[in-house]
């Protein structure tokens, strides 16, 4: 199959990224794999979507390190390709890292992906679904019972009233914008800083205030969902546990912390079942759930990372499972002569 990976910027990719592992796996399986950065798309005068693609020069790689080195090195193949002829475009950029004078890049994959899907390219995750998820309100569309209690406002008094209601402990973060930055833990014994924290966030827009779950102190579990179900391969779940280091609230990988093997319980599987209908509706092929206790803290639909970590603990190659799932979609597409609804194909 002809597979494209859309990333923020090829030059900024790291070999440990899940995207690199997926690309390497597909190349080794004989698929044609191209990478695109945010600035590489072209809407041609003939109404066809093209792109400046980058590919590795060889057809087989032993490690993802060697793969990325070749992709970013002088021997990489650079070519103008016709995106409309691709089988699959996988949108793997993380919009929260495109800030400042790169905000234009946040939606590049979605915008061009929405056109490509109308031309019969399978685009995952579905770009219209991703568009809905560009801000954290997306999370509030999942059933209430799986979420921490939440208030969203730009009014300082509203937010402080919520803090009191929650007993003085809450997490506050921006509604639009980045994952790890601008996340504050508002504590009852830190009243002096609360106004300042709120004001800092309100200047930039709307603020989400969220119930603090005490279990979060021990970290969280990342569980991958594929085609709307927990990703399971050779009897193992693609998941791992992140252990929080020190006081830092941001338990995601960028903020440090260590990783361990996760034990997936019925509580976790029940959560996965509850979020399934919405993920299917929105064509969310590959998703990372962040679970604390019996609640969801976050759903990463843009560029869920950590498949390599899951692999390390579970000793099975989840990348193979993901690429196999994509190959099945392409086979379906062949039978139906490119007549399909992208949101449905994304989840088949």
């Amino acid at each position, binding site marked *: 199959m002809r597979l494209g990976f859309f990333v923020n910027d090829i030059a900024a990719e790291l070999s440990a990224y899940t995207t690199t592992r997926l690309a390497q796996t597909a190349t080794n399986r004989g698929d044609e794999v191209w990478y695109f950065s945010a600035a590489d798309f072209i809407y041609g005068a003939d109404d066809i979507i093209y792109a400046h693609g980058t590919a590795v020069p060889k057809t087989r790689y032993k490690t993802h390190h060697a793969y990325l080195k070749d992709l970013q090195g002088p021997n990489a193949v650079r070519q103008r390709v016709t995106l409309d002829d691709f089988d699959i475009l996988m949108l793997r950029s993380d919009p929260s890292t495109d800030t400042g004078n790169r905000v234009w890049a946040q939606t590049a994959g979605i915008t061009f992906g*929405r056109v490509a899907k*109308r031309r019969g390219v399978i685009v995952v995750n579905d770009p219209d679904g991703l568009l809905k998820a560009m*801000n954290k309100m997306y999370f509030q569309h999942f059933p209430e019972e799986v979420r921490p209690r*939440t208030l969203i406002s*730009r009014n300082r008094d509203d937010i402080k009233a919520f803090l009191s209601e929650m007993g003085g402990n809450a997490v506050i973060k921006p509604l639009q914008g980045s994952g790890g930055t601008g996340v504050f833990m508002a504590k009852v014994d830190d009243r002096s800083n609360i106004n300042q924290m709120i004001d800092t966030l309100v200047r930039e827009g709307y603020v989400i205030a969220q119930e603090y779950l005490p279990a979060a102190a021990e970290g969280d579990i990342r569980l991958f969902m594929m085609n709307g179900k927990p990703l399971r391969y050779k009897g193992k779940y693609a998941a791992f546990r992140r252990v929080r280091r020190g006081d830092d609230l941001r338990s995601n990988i960028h903020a440090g912390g260590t990783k361990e093997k996760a034990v997936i319980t019925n509580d976790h599987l029940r959560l996965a079942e509850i979020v399934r209908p919405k993920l299917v509706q929105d064509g969310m092929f590959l998703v990372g759930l962040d679970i604390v206790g019996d609640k969801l803290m976050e759903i990463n639909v843009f560029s869920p990372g950590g498949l390599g970590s899951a692999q390390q603990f579970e000793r099975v190659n989840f990348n193979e499972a993901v690429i196999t799932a994509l190959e099945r979609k392409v086979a379906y597409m062949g039978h139906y002569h490119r007549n399909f609804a992208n949101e449905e194909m994304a989840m088949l």
Partner: protein
Amino acid sequence: MRIGFLISDIETEKSGFTTLRLAMTALNRGHEVWVINAGDLAYDMDEKIRARAHSTAGKKYKSTTTYLKELKSSRARSERITIDDLDILMLRNDPAQDTGNRAWAKAAGIIFGNVALRSGVIVLNDPTALAGALDKMYIQLLPQHIRPRTFISCDRNEIKEFVQELEGRAVLKGFQGSSSQEVFLVTGDNRANLNQMIDAIVNYGYAIAQEYLPGAEQGSVRLFLVNGEPLRHKGKVAAFQWVRTGDGMRANIHAPGSTEAVKLTDVHYQIAEAVRPRLVQDGMFLAGLEIVDDKLIDIDIFSPDGLVTAQSFEKVNFCEAVIEALERKVDYMAYYRRRFDNVDMATL
């Protein structure tokens, strides 16, 4: 009916704006009317959308100047209302005006409107479709024969080649930015500056290059569509001609120019007919078309303005017609007890 108008900010609202005229017309017809700033929304702990909203003490106004003055005065009612209890929420903020440190306001109505939908509020235009129309790709999804030839890219050389192909006459503008800023006309005279013009745009994202239409020298025709069809009232159609004065390239009504009555031709109606299926599919209740020669150069679906201008030339009250169309929707809603699809309702 109970209707809310979401605008950028009441302090920057002008009495000539279509939104204010619509609000005043609704009030004069006996409806409960609220005006809401983009920054005054909240998602409350009970999962409802609320807002600090403004309403006048008076029940009837003759001019929007008085109405606006009353809205801003200390006599105005300012209350926290529940958006979920409204019949209609009109999203009327213009994202092109919300730039710089107000960028968060661009999508505020869309984000909160999407939640209010769950309670059966009719949200217009449909917020999901609006989210997909924040950049200029929206017009590229309309039929090819009504659009000027277009090329979109970040690649300086390819943009130059396209301009070459158009024999050196083209319009260059930012793909994601606001409607009127950074619009360049490339002609034989200023082609020496082509590199600088391209840089001025590409440094901030994608550039859109378009065939220059000879008729643009004279200006453009603005035609209003309601429920996907030309807005007709008492035998008159809501439209006017915008006449360019000076040589700025900004072919829209915010640019310097004058307005006059227009005689619509078959070409204009054919364009309206060609965009109709897409507008209906997307739940675009109110739209403003910008037509030059036989091409659609812009479509305003966020906050189409100029209805009052059309009114002054055609001597009928188009605002009454718009409010009547909304009243019909509220009647439908009552028959179906708030169980309806927002997209369908938007253009009924």
